């Protein structure tokens, strides 16, 4: 029997005065990298990076399920709540997890809404990190769809969500990984994708903050797939252009979930992004 090198543990953090039991996966040794999943999914999106011996030889990767996602439970009393993610709660969650894990200025790598919050953290709490890799991330994306579609009693929100986001997966993605990626959306808890989309499609507070990101202290690199209809290369380029010193690479054969949908295609771009995160001087 051979286990994969990924290990998973649970920890409890306090976010906005409430306990949140968080599931964390980790692998590797070396410089810490904290990885954030997309809306409506979970840490499994990072499975190939955490299992990559070349990358884990000198990076210690951590990926955690946001509350309500994957193996992280919703908070006590959730049964009567409407889940709506906010920038404040998201920022506080990432900072609390990084602090509880004892991470010393990790690189923050986030995809989609995880990339959006990575840029918020670059603007608001850059001192807690040593660099930011924002994947399929943009300043703001209003919804062209009705987010209420994804939580209603007469239909399966997960299946509808998966069918919708499949529009963002590249036809170059291996079939097995396309469906592994979609499965996570199908499994998403009721109302969770909708609550994530509320943050992603309604909160435009990042736009005014982009110019205050100091890439001389903490580098920012954006990665965007050409097949991403949600965050297009144009969206990512516009966002990078608003951050002095930020860089952006378009990945021609990838979509919105590159680390999950096409791991082999994504790896060189992610390795390049990691190499761009210069080691911080000791304070």
């Amino acid at each position, binding site marked *: 029997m051979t286990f994969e090198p990924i290990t998973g543990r649970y920890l409890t953090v306090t976010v906005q005065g409430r306990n949140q039991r968080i599931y964390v996966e980790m692998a590797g040794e070396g410089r810490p990298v904290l990885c954030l999943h997309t809306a409506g999914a979970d840490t499994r999106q990072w499975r190939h990076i955490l299992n990559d011996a070349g990358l884990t030889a000198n990076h210690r990767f951590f990926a955690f399920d946001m509350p309500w996602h994957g193996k992280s439970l919703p908070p006590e009393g959730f049964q009567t709540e409407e889940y709506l993610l906010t920038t404040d709660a998201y920022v506080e969650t990432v900072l609390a997890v990084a602090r509880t894990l004892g991470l010393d200025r990790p690189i923050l790598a986030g995809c989609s809404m995880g990339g959006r919050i990575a840029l918020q953290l670059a603007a608001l709490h850059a001192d807690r990190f040593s660099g930011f890799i924002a994947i399929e991330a943009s300043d703001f994306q209003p919804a*062209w*769809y*009705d987010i209420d*579609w994804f939580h209603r009693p*007469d*239909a399966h929100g997960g*299946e*509808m969500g*998966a*069918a*919708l986001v*499949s*529009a963002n997966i*590249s*036809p*170059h993605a291996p079939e097995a990984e396309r469906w592994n990626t979609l499965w996570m959306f199908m499994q998403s808890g009721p109302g969770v994708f909708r609550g994530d989309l509320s943050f992603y499609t309604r909160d435009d507070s990042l736009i005014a903050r982009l110019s205050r990101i100091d890439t001389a202290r903490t580098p920012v690199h954006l990665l965007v797939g*050409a*097949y991403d*209809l949600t965050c*297009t290369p144009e969206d990512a380029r516009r966002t990078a252009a608003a951050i002095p010193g930020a860089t952006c690479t378009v990945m021609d054969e990838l979509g919105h979930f590159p680390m999950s949908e096409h791991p082999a295609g994504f790896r060189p771009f992610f390795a390049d992004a990691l190499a761009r995160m210069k080691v911080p001087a000791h304070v």
Partner: protein
Amino acid sequence: MRATLAMMQSRLNEQPHLLRLGQLFSETVLLEVDGAEFYLTFRDGHLIQIAEGPSRKTPWRFALRTDADALAQFWQPRPRPGFHDIFGFVKIGRGRIDGDILALVKNLRFFKEFMALGRTAPQKEKVA
């Protein structure tokens, strides 16, 4: 176009998983290609009729309006960005989806996989 739709109709009948996904789908969909109307009537996941327009009397639940070149690109083994999904048509200004969108979204996987039945299979990539 009609020949392609007939081929898709035949392929649908050979896809048990799609017929299962569409077993509650009994609607008429308007596919408009370069202004030419095709009314696709589904019953329990089967495409039972392909009727050509124009028609002002045929009710339909939702419509996909695009052009023949966009569809031809969509049906390539590995379409270019924007042509890889029916929502891509809308995003790049080569199509429009209207009508009862919720009915489409509830049956989105079924309808998108039906539309993709016109696609030829991708060639195996050569190993260097």
